[in-house]
């Protein structure tokens, strides 16, 4: 694990995620502080990046069709996108660990049915499922988190299942059972903590994926609803002004790509750091 910090992919990924998270947390300090602020719309709309408006405010990334500052919306959109992504991944990890842990620890009908369920959900086209689930209620931020969590737990479940199964056969588990520790306690105290290491990789990769899917849903209009800015609905609103104000759609997209790249690189680096057979990769 120590080699991880010398891995340039991990360093880049962590630095970028820290930067974006920092900007999101410090929102009012690094931006105008109000993502929905509108002044004189006619005078301030579609200002180019690096422009200063009539009132003297500077707009690093220009303004959109309502004269709202794109940089401010990007920063506040990061709050929404990162929170949704993180909570969705948390939810899917919890479900995945429960399903995978149970499937790995209790052989027989429990394992068979849970694995069948996992394979089944894995075979569903996710966007179709997301569309249908999102249609179940009025679109909202909470709904997006729940929907992404419910459709993203399968890879975690598979991983945990495999780990738990192999750990359950190890001598230290047999020892704990021989000492009279209850089965539930063996699972919770001895097996799961050891099985969770590879889940870190899924968290990193899943975060990027969840942020991307949140943007997709918001782009289709069934995710986070305007005027709350999220990167997805910012791209959707920029779509209509692609000709005269391309920066409105371009900026959130670039932010999205950078965050997803950071998550993927971090996930790759973690994977290599955890897997001794590919350790040579991290030496570079």
């Amino acid at each position, binding site marked *: 694990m120590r080699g991880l910090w010398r891995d340039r992919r991990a360093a880049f990924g962590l630095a970028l995620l820290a930067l974006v998270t920092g900007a999101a947390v410090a929102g009012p300090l690094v931006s105008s502080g109000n993502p929905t602020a509108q002044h004189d719309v006619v005078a301030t709309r579609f200002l180019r990046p690096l422009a200063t408006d009539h009132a003297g405010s500077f707009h690093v990334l220009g303004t959109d069709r309502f004269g709202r500052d794109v940089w401010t919306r990007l920063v506040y959109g990061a709050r929404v996108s990162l929170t949704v992504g993180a909570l969705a991944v948390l939810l899917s990890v919890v479900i995945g660990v429960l399903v995978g842990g149970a499937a790995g620890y209790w052989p027989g009908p429990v394992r068979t049915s849970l694995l069948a369920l996992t*394979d*089944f959900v*894995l*075979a*569903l*086209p*996710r*966007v*179709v*499922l997301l*569309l*249908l*689930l999102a*249609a*179940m*209620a*009025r679109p909202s931020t909470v709904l997006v988190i729940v929907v992404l969590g419910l459709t993203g737990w399968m890879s975690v479940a598979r991983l945990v299942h495999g780990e738990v199964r192999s750990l359950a056969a190890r001598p230290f588990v047999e020892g704990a059972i021989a000492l009279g520790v209850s089965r539930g306690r063996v699972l919770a105290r001895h097996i799961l903590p050891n099985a969770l290491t590879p889940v870190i990789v899924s968290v990193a990769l899943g975060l*990027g994926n969840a942020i*991307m899917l949140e*943007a*997709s849903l918001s*782009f*289709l209009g069934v995710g986070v609803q305007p005027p709350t800015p999220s990167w997805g609905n910012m*791209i959707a609103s*920029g*779509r209509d002004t*692609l*000709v005269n104000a*391309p920066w409105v*759609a*371009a900026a959130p*997209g670039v932010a*999205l*790509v950078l965050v*997803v*790249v950071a998550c*993927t*690189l971090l996930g*790759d680096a973690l994977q290599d750091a955890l897997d001794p057979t590919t350790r040579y990769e991290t030496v*570079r």
Partner: protein
Amino acid sequence: MLSHLGARALAGAVVLAGVVTLTFLLVRLAPGDPVERLLGPTATPAQLAVQRRALGLDRPLAAQYAIWVGRFARGDWGRSIATGRPVRVLLGEAVPATLALVGTSLILSYLLGLAVGAWQSGASPRVDTAISITTVTLFALPGFWLGLMLVMTFTYWMHWLPAFGATGLDADGLTGWSRLADRLRHFALPLATLTLIGVGGAARFARGAMRDVRSQPFVRTAEAKGLSPFLVTRRHVARNALIPIVTLLGLSLPALFSGAVLVEAVFAWPGVGRRLVEAVQARDYPVVMAATAVTAVLVVAGNLLTDLSVAWIDPRIRREKRQS
């Protein structure tokens, strides 16, 4: 081999039944009513009731489900509530459009991805890193955003390619080559969007698979006996690396269809994905059900095909299956 195939087909049928049932439940339990949308805000409760009865929507859910399954199996897919057109006609137009887009982009992505991965697995560390940065970025691009950026560049700035639909407004008047050219020009941007992202994913995976194979002793033997680097890659590395890659190809089908839903929405491509998005929004039950069922059939069939090709590529699996 046959029994193995039978078991996989059975599993596929179970997935199919599950998808259809789940879709039915979700779309029915969702709030919103196609009849209210159809008749508009001025309709009286009596008019709504008459229309619901005419569509069979007043029956218990279980009965409606049974009726739908029976009719669907016999080929009677009903009529779209929103447009009144037969669902089979609607999807008959949409399925070829989606298959053309998804199929072509799948083939191109994997051919290009394999080539890039093979090149990269034997390249110097600096080239390897440069390509890795490119492929991870491509892989991270959201399809709908990449589509918009391509439209901005090639349609609005350069005026080269059309951005919307599968044919131009004057398509009916075109014949021969100009008709084909019109089709291809409309095909270019959606295809490029899906393929660029696909190449990123395929190349990343191909690089990993090839590196794994390249570190094996038999590759060193092949090199030691004097085979050219190209032949080593082609005969020994690529063939062995192909097995996990083809498996991934099958697993990536659902994701590819999901991606196509968004790309079709961006480019107004008249495929199944766009029909599905519209139908879900309008609560057009017959179209939602049929479109989901068709997508699920395509995904399941694709996975079966993948299974067969893995067995065909890997003689060990082929022989094992024959003996058992």
